[in-house]
C-alpha cells in the first residue's frame, strides 16, 4: 500500500500557493507594476541625461513594457474593487512607454514623458491604498 499522506500534503501546499487571497495577489501585482515602472523611469532618465546608449534603452524599455502588460493581464483576473483604478493607470503607463519608444533621439521629450511616468506610478501606488498618501520617489 502506498503511503499517500506526503503526496496529499504536497498537493495541499500547492493548492495553498495558488489560492492566496485576491487582496494579497492584487497587492503583489501592484508591487510588481511599481517596480517595472520605477525601472523604466530610471532607464529613461539615464537616457535623457545621455548616460545610456539607445540600443540598451530601447531593449530595456520594451522588456519593462512587456512585463507591465503581463502584470495588467494578471490583474484583470483578480476580483478586487481597487483594480479598475490601477488598470486605468497601467493603461496610461503603457501608452507613455509606447510614446517613449518613438521619441529616441529627443532627450528633452524623454524628460517630459518621464515626469508622466512618475505621476502614473503615483496613481498606481495610490490605487492599492486609496486612503494613504502615495509613497513613491
Amino acid at each position: 500500500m502506498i503511503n499517500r499522506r506526503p503526496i496529499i500534503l504536497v498537493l495541499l501546499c500547492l493548492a495553498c500557493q495558488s489560492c492566496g487571497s485576491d487582496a494579497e495577489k492584487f497587492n503583489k501585482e501592484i508591487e510588481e507594476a511599481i517596480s517595472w515602472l520605477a525601472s523604466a523611469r530610471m532607464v529613461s532618465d539615464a537616457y535623457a541625461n545621455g548616460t545610456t546608449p539607445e540600443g540598451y534603452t530601447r531593449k530595456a524599455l520594451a522588456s519593462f513594457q512587456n512585463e507591465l502588460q503581463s502584470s495588467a493581464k494578471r490583474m484583470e483576473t483578480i476580483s478586487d474593487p481597487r483594480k479598475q483604478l490601477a488598470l486605468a493607470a497601467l493603461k496610461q503607463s503603457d501608452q507613455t512607454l509606447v510614446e517613449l519608444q518613438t521619441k529616441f533621439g529627443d532627450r528633452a521629450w524623454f524628460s517630459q514623458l518621464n515626469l508622466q511616468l512618475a505621476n502614473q506610478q503615483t496613481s498606481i501606488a495610490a490605487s492599492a491604498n486609496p486612503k494613504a498618501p502615495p509613497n513613491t520617489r
Partner: protein
Amino acid sequence: MKKIFEIALGIVTSVGGFLEIGSIATAAQGGAAFSFQLIWAIALGGLCVIFLVEQAGRLAAVSGHTIPDAIRERFGSNYFLFLLLVIAIVSLLVMAAEFGGVCVALEMATGIGFQWWAIPVAFVVWLIIWKGTFGAIEKGVSLLGLVTLCFVVGAIIIHPPWKAILHGVLPTLPAQDKTHYWFVAVSILGASISPYLFFFYSSGAIEDEWDQSYVGVNRIIAVGGMSFGSLISIAVLVLAAMLLLPAAIKVEHYSQLPLLLIPIFGRTGFWLFVASLGIACLGAAMEITLEIAYLAAQGFGWNWSENQRPLDEARFSLVYTVTIVLAMLLVVVGIDPLKLTIFSMALTAATLPVSIVPFLFIMNDKSYLRTYRNGWISNGVVLLIIALAFILAIVSIPLQIFGGS
C-alpha cells in the same frame, strides 16, 4: 620572493574570478528586496568556500590528486558516475547561465538580442580553451575580472550606513515575505558554494604543479582570495539596497542590473557594468567548461591538461567541445538568462551534499594527506557545511516553488 609573488597573483586572480552572474544576480535580488538583511548569507557562503577551497588545494598539493580523482578511488566508480551525472547537469545549467551573462552584456553594449550572441560567444570560449594554456585562461581572464572591483568602489562612494551593514552579518528575519527571503538566501548560498569553484581549484593546483611546499601558499590564497571575492558580492548587495530598494525596484530582469552603477558613475557606470558582467561571466563560463571536462577525464582516467595539445587529449577536448555546444543551445532557444541563473543556483544548493560529503572522508584519509589531514576545526566546519548542504538540499526545491519570483 617567488612565493610572495605567487600568493599575490593567486589572491588577485581569485578576487578577479570570484564574481559571476549567479553572485551578481542573487546579491542584487537580496539587496533590492531585503536591504542589508542577507549579508549574512554571502558571509556564510564565503566562509564555507574558504574552507572547501583550502581543502581542495591542500589535497592536490599534498597527494597530487584532484577531488574527483580521489572520490573515484575512495568511493568507487558507481558513486563517481552518480557524482559526474549530477555535477555535469547542474554545471551545464550554470554554464548556460554564464554564457547568457556574456550574451546579455553584449546585448547591452550593442542593442542586438542576446540569443544572437550565443554562437559567437560559444566559438570564442571554445577557441580560447582550444588554443590557450591554463595559466593564460586562469590569470588573463581573472586579471581582467578585477574590473568588478568597481562595485566595491561604488559601494564606498555611496556612503552606506556601515553600522547597518555590520548588523546584516547577523541573520535576522524580515517582517514579511519570509518564503522569498529564504529562497534568496538559499540562492545566494548556492551561488557562493558552487562545486565547480573547488573542483576547478584542485585541478588548477595540479595544472600549476603544486607540491607539499604550497600548503601555506594555498591557505593564504584561499582565505585572501575568497574573502575579498565575497566583499565584492556584498558590495553588489549594498548597491542594490541603497539604489534599487528606495526606488521600489525588485530585480527580476537583467536589464535592471546596470542601474546598480549608472546612478553613481553615470555613462562610465553603464560601461563598467557591461564590462564587469561580460568579463566575469566569460571567465566563469571557461572555468565551468574546463571543470566538466576535468571531472570526466579525471574520473575515467583519460589524459587531461589544459596545457597539452588538444590532439594529445582528444577525449578531454571532445567533452568540453560538446559541453560548449549544449550550453550554447540553451541560450539560443532564448531561455531568460536571469531566470536560468536563479533556477540553477537553487539547483546547485539542492545537489551540494553529493559533492561535499566525500570531503570529510577524503580529507581525513592518511593515504592521501599523511600529516596534512584535517584538524578538528576543519572537520567541525566541514560537518557544519554538510549539515547546511543537507538543509539546502531539502528546502531549495520547495522554496523555488513557493518563494521564487
